């Protein structure tokens, strides 16, 4: 039998009808996650055609993108940024109720960012196909699932048929040897990988992350790495399941239990690329040499070690990027004055991320004039963080502690960076205006973001970790 990559194995196991030159494969979808922003038009389309949601039991909804992160007022009214945002959430509630879809709404203890709650509930499992109308769906690939973002028309296809038309993508592999040093996280690794592959370097491909450094990451770090696959243009990124994966899944609400877990675990651990699987592109990286990274431009691949000089622009696009960012080539990002710091998002809004930020902030204070906002990735993350006292660390340091949601990553709920302000953000995109019109964004890890908040300028977190304040 032809040796296959992990991606190809998961893909092949979900083929309802095989791909031909004339037609893509009909691919079965195990789990469909939906949210308020990319689903309304899909439900409208279904209704216009008299179609039903075929498998509401394989569909799970949450509200995260346009939801406010400030609590309701005394009358219980939530501070939506606009009436439109409120209506969008209302429409999701109506659609889910009409079609029998489980919705994690304001009343649910599981509400949160879609890519945080799937793994948290154990809904995301190895070998599954997972889709969502959101490009960061690759996050779920950390479990050895084939997970990718789709558009609203395809949301309609999955709602109506539980399938999608898909052609096999080109498998690519990134192998990271060695071990990450203290203060260097999955986010730094993700930024280094994207810088190496290039923005668009993964277009048409699916990335598999392998090697000791990847194995050495916890599930949260692995999710961060897979999450950003799309920033290299790859629709999906995945990591073969191992003991770390099983430990995360064990005891989760939607995961199998008892003997069923043992049976599933055996199957999950068998999911791996064959030794002689052929990859369209292979890339090697060494973790030992990695240092905390940050971006200097307006594409996620424009990243450099915080303490290194920003490279001289080689292209018109890079020059334009630097002009927009008002960052000087030849000087390090360290020391660049910062206005806003954001910790959160589907990239870095999990408990491990909040712990990393709190470790830097404990006993310290956010610099004068800097606004720091922390939005947990889910309500469960919020509760766990509060149980550990992380909220008190953030509040004592002068940061804002918010409710769960996408918040300032996509800035469509009113949490915005003001025009011209420079933000260090743990999110995934530094595009022009991504965090608000005219906002300038530097992407970095939670520890680097927290260190920058304390320093009042972009800062390498390592000095903050070695000595307590």
């Amino acid at each position, binding site marked *: 039998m032809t040796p296959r990559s992990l991606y190809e194995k998961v893909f092949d196991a979900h083929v309802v009808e095989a791909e031909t030159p004339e037609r893509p494969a009909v691919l079965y979808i195990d789990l469909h996650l939906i949210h308020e922003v990319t689903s309304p038009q899909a439900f409208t389309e279904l209704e216009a055609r008299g179609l039903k949601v075929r498998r509401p039991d394989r569909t799970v909804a949450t509200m995260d993108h346009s939801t406010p992160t400030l609590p309701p007022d005394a009358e219980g009214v939530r501070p939506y940024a606009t009436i439109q945002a409120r209506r969008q959430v209302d429409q999701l509630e109506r659609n889910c109720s009409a079609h029998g879809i489980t919705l994690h709404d304001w009343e649910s203890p599981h509400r949160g960012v879609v890519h945080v709650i799937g793994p948290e509930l154990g809904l995301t499992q190895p070998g599954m196909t997972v889709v969502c109308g959101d490009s960061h769906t690759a996050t779920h690939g950390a479990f050895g699932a084939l997970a990718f973002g789709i*558009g609203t028309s395809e949301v309609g296809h999955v709602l109506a048929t539980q399938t999608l038309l898909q052609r096999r993508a080109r498998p690519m592999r990134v192998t990271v040897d060695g071990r990450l040093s203290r203060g260097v996280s999955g986010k730094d690794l993700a930024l280094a990988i994207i810088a190496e592959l290039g923005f668009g370097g993964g277009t048409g491909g699916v990335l598999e992350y392998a090697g000791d450094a990847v194995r050495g990451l916890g599930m949260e770090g692995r999710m961060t790495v897979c999450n950003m696959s799309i920033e290299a243009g790859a629709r999906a990124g995945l990591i073969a399941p191992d003991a770390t994966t099983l430990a995360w899944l064990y005891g989760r609400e939607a995961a199998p239990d008892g003997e069923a877990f043992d049976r599933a675990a055996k199957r999950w651990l068998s999911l791996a690329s064959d030794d002689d699987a052929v990859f369209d592109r292979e890339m090697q990286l060494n973790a030992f040499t990695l240092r905390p990274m940050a971006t200097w431009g307006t594409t996620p691949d424009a990243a450099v070690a915080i303490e290194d000089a920003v490279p001289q622009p080689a292209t018109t696009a890079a020059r334009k990027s630097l002009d927009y960012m008002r960052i000087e080539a030849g000087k390090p990002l360290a020391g660049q004055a910062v206005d806003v710091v954001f910790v959160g998002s589907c990239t870095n809004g999990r408990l491990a991320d909040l712990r990393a930020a709190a470790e830097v902030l404990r006993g310290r204070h956010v610099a004068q004039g800097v606004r720091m906002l922390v939005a947990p990735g889910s309500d469960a993350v919020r509760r766990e963080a509060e149980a550990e006292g992380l909220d008190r660390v953030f509040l004592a340091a002068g940061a804002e502690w918010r409710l769960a949601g996408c918040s300032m990553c996509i800035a469509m709920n009113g949490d915005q960076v003001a025009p011209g302000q420079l933000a260090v953000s743990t999110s995934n995109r530094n595009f022009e205006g991504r965090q608000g019109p005219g906002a300038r964004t530097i992407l970095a890890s939670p520890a680097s973001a927290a260190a920058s908040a304390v320093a009042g300028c972009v800062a390498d977190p390592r000095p903050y970790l070695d000595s307590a304040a």
Partner: protein
Amino acid sequence: MTPFKTLTSRTVVLPAANIDTDQIIPARFLTTTTKQGLGREAFHDWRYDKDGAAKPDCILNQIDPAEHRVLVAGRNFGCGSSREHAPWALTDYGFRAVVSTEIADIFTSNALKNGLLPVVVDEETHARLVEHAGEPVTIDLQASELRMGNHVVRFTVEPFSRECLLDGVDALGWLAGRIPAIEAYEREHAA
């Protein structure tokens, strides 16, 4: 979906590389629950100043969209999010085709489902299109050819999507017809 067969129209050139979906339609306009009306906000932050006044120097404010239905853009066009609002905004503005040397995967998939033809061309053809900005081109999907004067290049579109575009039908109807095969798959894979 409006069928796409042959289009002859003038181009608009946005030469920047990596034009992401946040440029095409900023996230703050995604609270809509319909597909209509997003053309007004297409490239919003390029077209309008902070007070909402149209910037006269932006090419998209200078042209008649009905006369310029072909967008020629720098490499890696449509990168970023999966928002289908991007092709909705572009088609509502008036575009029927996007030409670049590289177009992002999810954007391509979304565009094809909305009668917006993504056309990937070689560097030389792209340079020629940039040089002759605003001139008419013909994009013939039946022949899979882009013609500008005597310059003719072939392009490829995923065959199933191409058929859908030529016929003006979308894939949902076809997929809905596969239910027996889907049911068989489900029976076979029931835990």
